[in-house]
């Protein structure tokens, strides 16, 4: 451990940019988790539309997003949009791309939960006089969300890890900063090991939050 001291000294000298990188990673992760969740609920609602065309298009979009690599989609946006005359910052492209991708996954998880719902409860709500939108807001969405908490929190963890790929579209976050530190200090192994540990720490925080959420939001009487 003692001969690691120079490594930590080096690390300290790069501290400001490391902290900035960490901040940007957290910012991106939190943002895309939020937008991905809201988007996911919206896409899920679309899968329940009364119009077959809407349902078909939504399912196709979900299929496409789940069946292609996220990085390819980000490259499509990053290298393709300028050809259409649209210039956006890497952060906006990252958020946009992630949101579309994560929304599809979240919608899929919500749909899986929806299949476990009791259709009689939905029929009963209609029989009471609630509109289709109200049935969604009061019964379908709350039950589907609460049943999907494990899958949705897993996605949040995935978001933290996947945020590390955005340096490939020139968004400088924590991993990007650490790559620069590594190339300056030539201590690749130690630097990247440290990087991994920091991500592990971030993920562990999410895991703790996730466990509490799971306990709090579990529907009594359902697995």
């Amino acid at each position, binding site marked *: 451990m003692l001969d690691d001291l120079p490594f930590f000294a080096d690390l300290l000298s790069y501290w400001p940019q490391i902290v900035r990188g960490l901040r940007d990673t957290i910012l991106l992760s939190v943002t895309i988790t939020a937008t991905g969740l809201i988007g996911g609920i919206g896409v899920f609602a679309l899968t329940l539309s009364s119009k077959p065309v809407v349902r078909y298009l939504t399912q196709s979009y979900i299929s496409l997003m789940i069946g292609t690599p996220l990085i390819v989609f980000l490259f499509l946006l990053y290298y393709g949009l300028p050809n259409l005359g649209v210039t956006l910052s890497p952060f906006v492209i990252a958020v946009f791309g992630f949101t579309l991708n994560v929304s599809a996954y979240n919608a899929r998880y919500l749909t899986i939960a929806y299949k476990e719902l*009791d259709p*009689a*409860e939905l*029929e*009963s*709500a*209609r*029989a*009471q*006089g*609630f*509109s289709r939108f*109200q049935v969604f807001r*009061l*019964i379908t969405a*709350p*039950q589907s969300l*609460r049943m999907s908490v494990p899958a949705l929190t897993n996605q949040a963890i995935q978001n933290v890890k996947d945020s590390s790929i955005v340096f490939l579209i020139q968004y400088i976050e924590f991993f990007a900063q650490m790559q620069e530190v590594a190339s300056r200090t030539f201590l690749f192994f130690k630097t990247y090991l440290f990087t991994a540990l920091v991500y592990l720490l971030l993920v562990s925080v999410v895991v703790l939050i996730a466990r509490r959420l799971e306990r709090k939001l579990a*529907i*009594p*009487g*359902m697995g």
Partner: protein
Amino acid sequence: MALLEVKDLVKSYGDRNVLDGVSFDLEEGEAKVVMGPSGCGKSTLLRCLNLLIEPTSGAILLDGNDITRPSADVRALRSRIGFVFQNFALYRHMSVLDNVTLALRRLKKLPKREAEERAMHELARMDMAEKSDAFPAALSGGQSQRVAIARALAMDPKVLFFDEPTSALDPIMVREVVTLINRLYLDNVTILCVTHDLGLAKHISDRVVFLHHGKVYAEDRIEELLHRDDPVLEDFFGGED
């Protein structure tokens, strides 16, 4: 003028007529039971009456207003019909109290306190007041049904529909339910009950509407139907006493 008038109700799926011209009336304070062999259309009938299923043709009059007309306010209609489902269909993610207050707060727009007072009143009427904080998963079948009835009654409906109230219960609970529905009947609640349970029909109904192949085959007091010399009726009731 009867509270509910059903005139020549037809519901067809493709070229199959599940309901083939059903007509009957329901007076205020009356309790009618709809019976018949499987596939006779009883559940479809109930769902047509509050437009959960759209009838193909025919008229349904609630208080003289034809609800099958396009201009009818379906949601207002539904809040005047209480519907108790076969498996109770309590909202499992909400407490018993919230189950009962949901429609009061979101449809009738009652403030929370008033809604909860009304809800507790109905729950007490069903002897379920002390379970108001429980969740549906913790309730027995009989308890769930009481809550389902309280939930329906809380909206002060003109008529209460029951879809096979005894199918999901064991024999002991069945007796309790029969007593309960009888009590409602004595409280002058108008009841339309779909069932295949003869005991229930005997105890709570004024008259039985017997459906066969989507038509009203007979409508009479249960004792009359049991003793009528008719092959279809004998077939269904199995030559009971």
